[in-house]
C-alpha cells in the first residue's frame, strides 16, 4: 500500500473487518479469507474510494428530487394538498410545534446534507493525501455512520400517517414519490459510509502522526 504510517500490512498482518481477527498474510495477498469467520479479507476495502464516490454522487442526485417531490398527499373533501419535507417542517413551525420542527429539520434536511458533505470531505481529504487531524476525521466518520439512519424518520412518519388516516371523505393520506427517493438517499448514504474505509485516512499520515494516535 502506501508508505508513511505503520500499517498492519507492513507487518504482514491483516485484520478482518467482520470479526476483528488479525491473521498473517500467506504468500499471496489476494482472494484471502479470514480463518475465523470466512469473510473476504482485504487490507483495505477494495475500490473504496470509487465505490464511495459512486454512492455519494447517487445520493446527491436523488437528494434534490427527494426534497422537491412531495413525500405525502393529503386529500380532504376532494381537495388535495401535497407536502414536501420542507413544507412539513414549515407546518410544524407554524403550528407552534417547534421542537418537533427542529427534530424533523435536523433529521431530514440537515443530516443528509451533512452526511454527504462529510463524506465528500473525507473522500477529498484522502484523495488529496491530507495529513491533518486524522482522529478528528475519524470521529467525523463515526458520527456520520451513526447519525445517518435517523434521516429515515420522515419516511416512518408518512407510513404511520398513511395507516392512520383513512377516513373516507374527511381525510386520506397517500405516500408521495418523494418518500421513496428520500429513503433512497438514506440507503445510499448508509452504503456510502459502509464502503468508505476509514483506515485510508491514515495511509498518508506521517509516521510521527501515526505514533501519536491511539485507537
Amino acid at each position, binding site marked *: 500500500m502506501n508508505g508513511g504510517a505503520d500499517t498492519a500490512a507492513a507487518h504482514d498482518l491483516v485484520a478482518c473487518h467482520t470479526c476483528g481477527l488479525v491473521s498473517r498474510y500467506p504468500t499471496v495477498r489476494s482472494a484471502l479469507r479470514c480463518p475465523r469467520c470466512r469473510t473476504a479479507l482485504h487490507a483495505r476495502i477494495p475500490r473504496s474510494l470509487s465505490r464511495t464516490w459512486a454512492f455519494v454522487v447517487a445520493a446527491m442526485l436523488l437528494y434534490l428530487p427527494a426534497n422537491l417531490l412531495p413525500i405525502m398527499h393529503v386529500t380532504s373533501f376532494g381537495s388535495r394538498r401535497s407536502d414536501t419535507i420542507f413544507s412539513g417542517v414549515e407546518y410544524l413551525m407554524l403550528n407552534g410545534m417547534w421542537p418537533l420542527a427542529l427534530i424533523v429539520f435536523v433529521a431530514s434536511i440537515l443530516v443528509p446534507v451533512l452526511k454527504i458533505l462529510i463524506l465528500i470531505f473525507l473522500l477529498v481529504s484522502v484523495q488529496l493525501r491530507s495529513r491533518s487531524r486524522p482522529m478528528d476525521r475519524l470521529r467525523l466518520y463515526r458520527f456520520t455512520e451513526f447519525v445517518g*439512519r435517523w434521516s429515515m424518520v420522515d*419516511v416512518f412518519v408518512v407510513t404511520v400517517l398513511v395507516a392512520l388516516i383513512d377516513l373516507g371523505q374527511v381525510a386520506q393520506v397517500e405516500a408521495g414519490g418523494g418518500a421513496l427517493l428520500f429513503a433512497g438517499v438514506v*440507503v445510499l448514504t448508509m452504503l456510502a459510509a459502509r464502503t468508505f474505509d476509514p483506515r485510508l485516512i491514515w495511509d498518508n499520515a506521517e509516521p510521527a502522526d501515526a505514533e501519536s494516535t491511539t485507537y
Partner: protein
Amino acid sequence: MITAPLALGITAMILFVLSNVFPLLDFGLHGRHDVTYLLAGIHQLFVQDRPILAGVVLFTTVLAPMLHISLLIYVFVPLALGRRPPAFVSALRMVQGVLPWSMLEIFLLGVLVAGVKLAENATIVPGLAAWSLGLLVIVLAAAATQVDPRRLWEQAS
C-alpha cells in the same frame, strides 16, 4: 455474559410480538375511533402502489429487527446451555450485517412525530404497541451493551 443477552433477547422477542399485534395509536376524531397497526401501515403502502417503499419500511421495521432478535436468541440459547450454536459463524455474520438496518428506534420517533402532528386536530392515544416499542428499543440497547462481539468471535473459532 451469556444469560443477560439471552434474557434480554427473549424479552425483546415478546415485546416485538406485542408491538405488532396490538395497536400503535388510537386516533379519535368526531366521535369515531380508528386504530392502526404497524403492519397495517406497510400494507397500505402496498395498496397505494408503492411497493418499493413498502418493502423498505417492511425490511427496516419488521424483517431486520425480527432477524436480529431471532439470531440473538438462536445464538445464546445454546451458549447458555454450554453448547456451540450450529453455524455459529454464519449466524454472527448475519447479525452484524443486519444490525445497521434495524431502525426501530427511528420508527418510534416517527410515530411520536406523527402522533404529535395529529394531536392538533384529533385525540391521539398511544396504543399498547407504542409502549412496547419503546421498551423494545431500550431492551435492544441494553442487550447491545451486554454483548461482547470479540468474545463471541473468539468462542466461534
